[in-house]
């Protein structure tokens, strides 16, 4: 059975690239374009991992993550944040969230799928 990944991303181009890479990598992908929708979908689909943009229009990524960590169904799902920012201002917040890691954009298309599966298996940050 294919592993399921939830992508929460409001930029459709990013979403498309990530989805294509993951599907080539052998994942089943579900998508949400907002944190609110993402949280609902996560509850429903129970994905193996969540790839989430750090800066969404409706909510800060870390806030959504904290909310999911409070619910039993989504508590243990690894979260992979993706951000274009290099300021690193969210490093502390991300470290405070269990089973969360950070990837910088642009994503490494050649390794993206591998990094996600590493994360699901309980990788270095998991």
């Amino acid at each position, binding site marked *: 059975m294919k592993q399921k990944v939830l992508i929460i991303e409001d930029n459709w181009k*990013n979403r498309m*690239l990530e989805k294509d890479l993951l599907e*080539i990598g052998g994942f089943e992908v579900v998508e949400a374009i907002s944190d609110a929708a993402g949280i609902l979908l996560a509850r429903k689909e129970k994905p193996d991992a969540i790839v989430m943009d750090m800066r969404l229009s409706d909510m800060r990524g870390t806030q959504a993550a904290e909310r999911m960590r409070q619910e039993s169904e989504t508590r243990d799902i690894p979260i992979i944040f993706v951000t274009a920012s290099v300021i690193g201002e969210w490093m502390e917040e991300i470290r405070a969230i269990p089973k969360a890691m950070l990837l910088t954009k642009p994503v490494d298309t050649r390794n993206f799928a591998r990094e996600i599966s590493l994360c699901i298996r309980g990788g270095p940050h998991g």
Partner: protein
Amino acid sequence: MLGWALDIPALKSVAPGLVTMKANTALCFVFIGAALWLLQVKRRNAPHGPLMAALLGLGVFGIGLLTLLEYLLRRDLGIDQVLFKELSDAVLTSSPGRMAFNTAINFTLTGLALFLLASPKKDRVPFVQILMVPVGILAALSFVGYLYHAEPLFIGPHFSTAMALHTAVLFLATFLGLLFCRPCCGVMAQVSSDAIGGKVMRRLLPATILIPLFLGWLKLHWEKTGVASNEFGVSFVATANLTLVTLYVAVLSFWLNKSESKATALAATLARSEISYRRLFEAAKDGILLVDFETGLIVDVNQFLIDLGGYPKSEFLGKRLWEIHFLKEMVPSKEAFLKLKAQEYARYEDLPLETKLGYKTPVEFVSNVYRVDGRKVIQCNIRDITERKRAEEALRKHQEHLEELVRARTAELELSNQKLKTTAEDLRRASKAKTEFLANMSHEFRTPLSSVIGFSEVLYDQKFGPLNERQKQYTQNILTSGRHLLSLINDVLDVSKVESGKMVLEVSLFSVQACLEEVLRLTDGLAYSKKINPLVEIPQDLGEMLADQRKIKQIIYNLMSNAIKFTPAGGKVGLRARKDDAGIEITVWDTGIGIAAEELERVFEPFTRLGDAYTQETEGTGLGLTISRKIVELHGGKMWIESAGAGLGTSVRFKIPTGGVSK
């Protein structure tokens, strides 16, 4: 008096057989004594003293005069025995209880003298002293009579009672008492004066009186006792008097000579001082006026004041101070002069003196009072202060000018300070805005760039089907350009972070050796591809460094890869580390294209690229060395570059201090 009251003969007469002092005489002496005492007592202690003394004097005068009248009218007025009765067989007494004729004269004169003496007016004193002369002579006659046993002298005229011995003595005392009562006045002023005459009087007079008396007594005594004959006595006294007078004359002339030579010297000194004073007075650069203190008449005026005012000397002399129009500012009236007199010192700083020609000259006026030969003189100094005022005015203006300058400069400084503050604030805001802008820009740039890189990478990897050669080449061009743009964005962001102080060092203690070895591993592939085998000199005891490990590693990696890139195949590249007390120094050197001396510092400026623009590789952003140096400096270290010249290779060194980072 006691003798009469208690009838003690020893008190009435000095010796038995001598005439008694009559009761009235004794009473008069008591009066005289009391009066003299009252006159000596300070007026404050006995305000009615002089009046009492005058009354006592009148009493004495009355008694004396009445007794005289008794003698002259040959009548008994009944005043002789008012107090006490005397036996009619009293020795040498014309009428019982009546005092002697000469005693009565003396009392009349003495009483009058006392009455005058009690008067507050000093000019009566000479009369007192004149009145006392006969008193002294009469007393002296009786006294000498007693001394020499010359009976006619003390017994007196046949109609009169004789003067008693103690009466004579008391009259002598009275004589001296009245004279010395007012030593400063009349004849006595001569005696008490400090001048030569007074000196002679005081020193020689007692001897003049006593020595002849003594000599006379000695002569008589010798003749009576038979020691010497009359001739011997006379010659002795004559010789003695001769000697004495000669001695007197000698002493007197000696004193006079001395005094005169002193006076001459003094006069010479005075003359000299007068000449000097005159010179000073005439040559003075102040106007000087001398004014008589009492009258206010101008005594002298110097040339300077004459020139200053333009009035001739005659306009001043003999005039009163307040009569001179020229001086109206200082002494406008007699009242002002009286005030000046009372104060004895006056000073006016700045008065307008009006000259004859009508000019106003500012002057300083000072007046002092001096004593010259017992007279008071007012000296007025009038100084022309035109120059001084001008200088003061110039100084004041200069000072004002300076103050104005200071004020203007202060205002300017305040303004520029304000400007600076505003500028600094603006700059700070601008810098903050710039950093925020760059952070946002970076994010906004990276989002589309992520798509460019991501999609072209997937295309280039042919994940969705094969591409022809041209398509593949194009896709690769898109990919490399996208990556270059990304690294540019990243470097620009780094520079701005360092410049705005946002770059945070994550300092830790790490092994330098391990760090260098990792860099060598990372550059191994690149070096191999250019057939370069880096020369590595790393001592074993390098130890640890306190710094941001990731950033230091990045710097060394950049330097190594640059060195390899800019060195032609077969050239040499080296990595050297050295440790000293100050810190650890890392050198990356090569035998590559080198840098001309004038270009050395420029390589640290942003976007500086070395070598021919056509041969450049596209990966460099031109910001690597700029960021590296800034990061080293952030660690408190230094980075510099050395080259023997173009084509001769380069070495880049940096040093991180042992103490670590200054945050």
